[in-house]
Structure formats: C-alpha cells, structure tokens
C-alpha cells in the first residue's frame, strides 16, 4: 500500500527544470531593467515550488540551497531590496548551480557541494551585506550591535522585528480537499519546527468510519504550539500556500517563560499525545493516497488485514516520530535522506507535453479506425464478389484513417522551436559580458513547430553558430562606432517553414567573414591551391572544411577548429543543409534548412537495375521522358539536359551506384528532375513505381553512413529500400570513385 515516491521523481525533475527555465528567463528580462511584479513573482513561485518539491522528496541539500535563494527573491519581491546587476548575476549563478544539483540528483551522482557552498555563501553575503548597510544607514551603530543585526538578517525575514521568545497557538483545520492541492501538512509542520519549538496535537473527531472514508480527503485538524523568536509573518508564510484551503487562526499566547513549559510537557510521551503523534507523521510522509494509512491505526480492530501492509512499511517513521515531535521534527526527514541514495540513478524518462486537443483528436481517430476495422471484419466474414465495391470503400476509409492518425501522431511530436531558442538569451547575456560586446538578440518565429528528434539534435549546432557570431562576427563597441554602426550589435534568430522544410536563420550585423583571412588560412593548410581563384561564395564554403579555424587565438568560447565542419556534419546527418552568406562590413547569415520530421515522409519509389530506391517526393519537381535532342554532352562525358530554359546536370544512378543491368539508352527510361539545394538535377531512372509514405529508418544504427543514401525504409512486402540523398548523389557525381560492382545475383 505504501507508495514509492520515486515514481514522482521524474515529474519533479521535469517541473523543476521548467521552473529553472522560468527563473532564468525572468532574471534575464530583469537584467534588462524590466522589473515588474509579475516577473519577480514568477521567479519566486518557481523557486518556492522547487524548494517544496525537493523537500518532499528528501533532497534536502537542494531545498536548503533554494531556501537562501528564495529569501533573497522574497526581499526583492517585497521591495526591500533592489535587483541590482550583482544580485541578478548571483541569482543566475544560483540557478545554474541548482540545475547542476538537480541533474546530479537525477543521475544519481554526487552533488558538487563545494560549488553549491560557494554560491550559497555569495547569496548569504548579499543578504548579510544589505542588513549591514541598512543598519548603518539607520544610525551609526557600534560594531557589536551591527553584528546582532546581521544575525537577525541571517534568519531571513524582516530583520527589524523584535526577537523575543514568544509562544503562538496555531489552529489549523484544512478543508477536506487540501491533500488534493498537493499540500502536505507535515511539510508545513517541519517548516514550523525549524522556526522554534513545536508541539502538535491532532484532532481526529471528524474522522468518519472506515467504510465512509475517502482516502483523498483530509479529516484531521491540528492545534500547534510554537515557541521561539518567531513573528507572525514567518508563520503566515508557512501557511501561504494553503491560504483559502483551510481555516487558520494564529494567536499569540503570553510571553514564553522558562517555567511555563506547557507546550513541551504536552509533547512529552504522555499516552494520548503519543497516539496523536503516531497518527500524523504518517500522513505526511504520504502522498495523497497514504492518507489512508494515517487513519489505519484507528480501525485496526475492524480490518486487520488491510492494515498490515501499511503499518509495517511505515514502522520506521512512525516509531521515530514520537520522539521527534517532542524534540524536533527533523529526524523523519533524515531517515528519508538516508533512504534516498539507495534509489540511485533515476533514469530520466523522456517525455513531452501534449495539448489535450491533440490527444482528443487522436482518440476520435482511433474510434473511427475501430469502426472501419469492424466494417472490414464484417465484409471478410462472408465475402463474395458482389461485396467488392464495399471492400474497396472500406480499404479507402482505412487508408484515410491511417493517414490522419499518422498526421495526428506527428503533430504530437511537433514542438515549437522556442524550446531551442530559449537558451540563447542566457548564452548571449553571458558571452557578451565576457567579451565586452553589446549585442541585442532578436528572436522571431519561435512558434514554428519542429519534430522533437530534430529539435534535440539541432540545439548544439545552433549554439555553435550563435557563439561564432558573437565571438567572430560581431565587433566590439569601439570598432562598431569606428565603422559607423550603432554601438549595439544585432543578432537575429529566425525560424519559418518553407515547403516541407524548416528554415532557421542566424544573422548578425557584424563584420562578415574575412575572406582574405579565410583564403590565406586555407592555402596555409593546403586546402586550396594558391593559384586557384575562388568566388566569394566558394571562399565562404571553406569554413565548413574539417580542421579549419581562423580564430587568431583559441579562446574559451570558440575557435578550437572543431567548429563548422562538425556543425555541417550534424546538420547533414539530420538530412539538412547549412549555408552561409556574408558581405564584408555588413554581416553574415547562416541558413539551416531541415526536414520537418525525421520519421515519416512521402516517397516516390523508383526502379533502377532491379533495385528499388526511394526519392523524397518533396524534392521531385517533375518527371520527363528524355528527348535525345535536348541532351548535350560536355567534353564527351558530362551530360546536361535542357529542360525549358535550363540546363540541368544528368545523373545516371547506375553510374554513381555502380549497378549492373540498368537501362543505358536514355530514351527508354525516365528523367526525374529533383531539387538539390539551390539548383536542379536530373536523375535518370528505369521507371517510376508507386508513391507511398515511408517510415525512415537509419542505416547508421547497425551499419554506417552510406554516401548518397539518406536512410532506408521497409516496403509493403517486407524488403528494404534505400532512400536517396540527392545532395549526396550530386557530390558523388562530381567525384566518382568506383569501389565495386554490385552483383544482384548472389544466389546460385
């Protein structure tokens, strides 16, 4: 019956990382001077949720760390502190640290406590610093008094409050639905216990008989006595999240005196209180459903069986709890932290958030599919030829259903590209301050949707390109002013759909590529013949060659020479292309073109020499029968085909793939004109077969990348067909290297 909380870990991590993203983007917009209440509150809420969640799951170091962060944020929220540049920088580094800590916990590895301590010291320092400041501004205090002030500031809230021991009586009666809001009474009690000496009494009068018990409702109410130097605001803060979900009264009792130890004595192991104590620490450890176990001891006589499991599992907490409440409420949490490391390495489940409308449409489609299936089933039960039209109808319907279903599924995988773009404000912020440049980042088309798998792989190349633009492209303010440009550089990230592709542009208004330097370097590295004259476009292309880096100094940021070729390789492996346009002094633009999805596409099956290949339908412009008079030979070997006003290179698949037995005579076959990046190419094939949707499978999973082949798919008859990679074919066509003849007849 006990619930394995670890099953909620992945949700916690996911939400926490989202929270961190919110905090980060909020802080960044604050650093640009846009401090409004909504942003600050958003950041604060995110921090608070992470703290709460971390506490619930027993990640104490995270919740402790977040506490300092939260305190600082709270002060900003209350207007007690200005969000200065330094404060925001510290907060940002705290966000980073928190992210690292969370990742460490998620992977089950050790947290870098040293770093966490550093950052939390920095936070402390800010907290301390201001207290000292405010103290000195109020009046010139002697050093001793100042140190007292600092101490109070340390404890967090409202340094000016009187710090005398007080006793508070808190009556806390949650409404039945409290547990459903995700709030945990015990968490709040733990928090109270940190403020001072706490004793708790539970009131179980409203507990219904077991049979009427709704395990998700809260029937208990509590009376708490808290003594210590606590002010009402601090108590209120604890109950902030259940405001509206409970009846709460906080009264101040008479001054706490040493002899008047009523609060503590009641908590001392007197029989009845102990009973109460056993009950409620159990609730808390629980997530919602375990509320049931809390009630368990009261109904033991009635349903002994049902109780056995919960009580045994909860024993450790329950036994420790009575002692805990009389002294301090921390031990249970300690027990939890001990347990936590055992559940190491929570494998991060990849998950995506999907709008309910998308799911609903899927459900509808599946409904239709079921209807079609039963219709077809009926036809099949006693089939005779007269039912043929019905069968055909049914099959058509099935095809429609399948296609729609597939489209909906694909839509589920589509995510807005903002998922990738969102990391750039931070990157730009960090890098510009390091480089001493001023850059304005403009993001457009963030809502453009892209397949999740593509998204995951495009992140790193994009980061690289952005870094490059910042490091090499955009100039320092002085240089910009000297070049008659505005001091602040502009970096634009734009995404949009074009045909079946998504286009991502990274453009800057920097110095542009230094052609002379690139050329010199290329000649130096022996990549280019010194006598060769290259067009500017060709020179720009050089930066994508392996081992090419023009950075004068290898910096921390870029210029390791493993740059652009890797970018191009990664993008090519996604079936995309990257190109650069640059003009000196005006800026450069990198354009990435990617297929929308990697999983499924429309394909045209073609046949060449007994082999079937697939051409992505999207790249086919037209198919024509060859008119020999339009074929022009170049130096007797290369063939160009004149189609309307254009000459397109003619590629014979039999040649590039070294196939035997294909059609040689151009008049007997077909020419498929395909779009290859910027120009057109004619592919000569034996014949066109069907068009169909194909599921793209990678050849690399078990084999390796093959030139001219983008992937493979499985046809209806179970055989494998290769999908052609048009740009790859073009390169092969340019530099034909014969490896072997494929013989298709292996069987004797």
């Amino acid at each position, binding site marked *: 019956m006990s619930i394995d909380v670890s099953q909620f870990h992945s949700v916690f991590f996911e939400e926490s990382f989202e929270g961190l993203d919110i905090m980060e983007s909020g802080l960044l917009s604050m650093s640009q001077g846009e401090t409004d209440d909504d942003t600050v509150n958003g950041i604060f809420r995110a921090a608070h949720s992470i703290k709460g969640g971390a506490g619930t799951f027993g990640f104490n170091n995270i919740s402790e760390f977040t506490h300092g962060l939260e305190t600082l944020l709270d002060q900003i929220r209350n207007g007690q502190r200005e969000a200065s540049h330094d404060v925001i920088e510290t907060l940002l580094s705290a966000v980073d640290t928190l992210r690292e800590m969370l990742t460490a916990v998620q992977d089950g590895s050790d947290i870098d406590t040293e770093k966490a301590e550093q950052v939390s010291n920095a936070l402390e320092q800010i907290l301390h610093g201001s207290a000292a400041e405010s103290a000195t501004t109020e009046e010139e205090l002697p050093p001793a008094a100042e140190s007292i002030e600092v101490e109070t500031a340390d404890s967090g809230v409202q340094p000016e409050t009187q710090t005398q021991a007080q006793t508070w009586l808190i009556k806390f009666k949650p409404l039945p639905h409290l547990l459903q809001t995700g709030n945990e009474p015990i968490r709040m009690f733990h928090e109270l216990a940190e403020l001072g000496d706490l004793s708790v009494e539970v009131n179980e009068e409203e507990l219904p008989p077991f049979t009427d018990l709704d395990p998700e409702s809260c029937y208990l109410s509590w009376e708490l006595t808290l003594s210590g130097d606590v002010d009402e605001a601090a108590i209120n803060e604890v109950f902030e999240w259940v405001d509206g979900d409970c009846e709460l009264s906080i009264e101040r009792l008479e001054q706490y005196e040493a002899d008047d130890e009523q609060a503590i004595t009641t908590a001392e192991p007197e029989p009845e209180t102990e009973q109460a104590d056993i009950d409620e620490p159990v609730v808390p450890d629980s997530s919602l459903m375990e509320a049931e176990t809390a009630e368990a001891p009261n109904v033991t006589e009635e349903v002994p069986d049902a109780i056995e499991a919960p009580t045994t599992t909860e024993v450790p907490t329950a036994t420790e709890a009575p002692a805990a409440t009389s002294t301090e409420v921390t031990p249970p949490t300690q027990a939890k932290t001990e347990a936590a490391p055992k559940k190491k390495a929570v494998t991060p489940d990849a998950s995506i958030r999907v709008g309910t409308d998308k799911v609903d449409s899927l459900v509808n489609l599946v409904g239709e599919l079921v209807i079609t299936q039963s219709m077809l089933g009926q036809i099949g039960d006693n089939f005779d030829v007269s039912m043929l039209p019905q069968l055909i109808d049914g099959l058509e319907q099935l095809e429609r259903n399948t296609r729609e279903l597939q489209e909906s599924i694909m839509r589920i995988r589509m995510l807005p590209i903002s998922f990738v773009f969102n990391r750039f404000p931070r990157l730009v912020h960090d890098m510009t301050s390091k480089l001493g440049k001023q850059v304005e980042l403009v993001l457009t088309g963030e809502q453009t949707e892209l397949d999740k798998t593509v998204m995951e792989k495009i992140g790193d190349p994009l980061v690289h390109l952005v870094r490059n633009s910042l490091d090499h492209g955009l100039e320092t303010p002085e240089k910009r002013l000297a070049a008659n440009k505005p001091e602040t550089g502009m970096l634009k990230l734009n995404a949009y759909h074009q045909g079946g592709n998504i286009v991502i542009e990274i453009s800057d208004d920097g110095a542009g590529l230094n052609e002379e330097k690139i050329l010199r370097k290329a000649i130096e590295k022996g990549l280019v013949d010194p006598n060769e004259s290259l067009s500017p476009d060709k020179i720009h292309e050089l930066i994508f060659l392996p081992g090419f880096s023009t950075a004068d100094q290898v910096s921390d940021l870029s210029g390791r020479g493993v740059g652009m070729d890797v970018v191009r390789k990664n993008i090519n492996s996604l079936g995309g292309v990257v190109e650069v346009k640059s003009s000196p002094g005006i800026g450069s633009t990198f354009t990435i073109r990617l297929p929308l999805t990697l999983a499924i596409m429309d394909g045209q099956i073609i046949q060449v020499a007994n082999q079937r290949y697939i051409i992505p339908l999207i790249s086919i412009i037209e198919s024509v029968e060859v008119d020999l008079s339009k074929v022009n030979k170049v130096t007797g070997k290369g063939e160009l085909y004149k189609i309307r006003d254009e000459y397109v290179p003619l590629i014979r698949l039999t040649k590039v793939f070294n196939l035997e037995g294909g059609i040689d005579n151009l008049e007997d076959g077909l020419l498929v004109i395909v779009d290859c990046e910027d120009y057109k190419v004619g592919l000569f094939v034996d014949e066109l077969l069907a068009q169909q949707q194909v599921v793209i499978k990678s050849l690399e999973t078990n084999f390796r990348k*093959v030139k001219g082949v983008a992937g493979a798919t499985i046809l209806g008859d179970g*055989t*494998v067909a290769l999908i052609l990679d048009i740009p790859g074919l073009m390169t*092969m066509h340019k530099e034909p290297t014969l*490896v072997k003849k494929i013989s298709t007849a292996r069987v004797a």
Partner: protein
Amino acid sequence: MSDMNAENEILDIINITDGVDDGAQQYLTFELEDEHYGVEILRVQEIKGWDNVTPIPNTPEHVCGVLNLRGLIVPIVDLRLLFDMPFNPYTKTTVVVVLKVEGITDRIVGIVVDAVSDAQNVRPEMISVAPDLGSVVDTSFIKGIANIDDCMLMLLDVDKLLSVEQVG
C-alpha cells in the same frame, strides 16, 4: 519452406547440447569451407536462412546488403568474403547468424556462413592463444583456439570481427 526446414534443423542441433558445465562457455560453431569457427552463444540473437537482401551501393564486396529483421535494418556480411575466401553461392543450408556486436554503440549484424554445426561447451582451460601467423593472416579477431574432438575450433571475437571499420 526450405528456409523453415533449415532453421528447424539448426534449432534441433542446438537443443541437443544444452547442458552447460561449470565455468564452461557455450559457443555456437559453424563452418566455412572446412574450417570450424565458434562465437559466444550469448552473442547470437538468432539464426535464420538466407533471404534476399537489399544491396548497398559502393560498399566493400563482403557487405551483402541490408535485411529487414522485424523492423530493424540489419547489415549482412559474408564471412567468406570478409576472410578473403572464395565466394560460395548460397544454397538452402546457407545460414545467417545474427549477432549482437558491442562497441561505442551496440549494433546488430548478420554473418553469412556455410552451415551451422553445433553448440559446444568450451571451458577456459581448453582455449589456447591464437598463434601469430605473421602477415599471412590477420588473427586479431581470433580470441583463441580450442581443440574439440580432434578438430580445431577458432573462437571469434565478435566485437573486433564486426567492428565498424572492419565491416564498413
């Protein structure tokens, strides 16, 4: 149908010798020409009859092509050709042994062999180091040799034999 028979025969052979001694490792043995080879049986995912493959252009001759193995695209390598032995036209006893290859990423690769013969228990003390044959034969992918029933069995290191560099 003939494929099915071949497969069933193979399975029968394997079932006969399924007892494992302590410390012994089971090897699936197969034949190439008159030579006997063995691979760790735990590396064998399945054994199937020869099926037509889709050739991949511009790959070395020993790469027959790729096969659809329940949705996976699996490359098939002719072991004879990989070993530079003469090509043997495929018959109904020609068998594809589908192996799990561990490397930077785990892969599935099928090898074409003349026939599968047995599953053998090989104890570590039965294995001797493969002799160095100098430049005549590259023996780096032979883990060791074992003598079983007066017959030399070469134990193959699947990961080295079918590494990306080797196969590609």
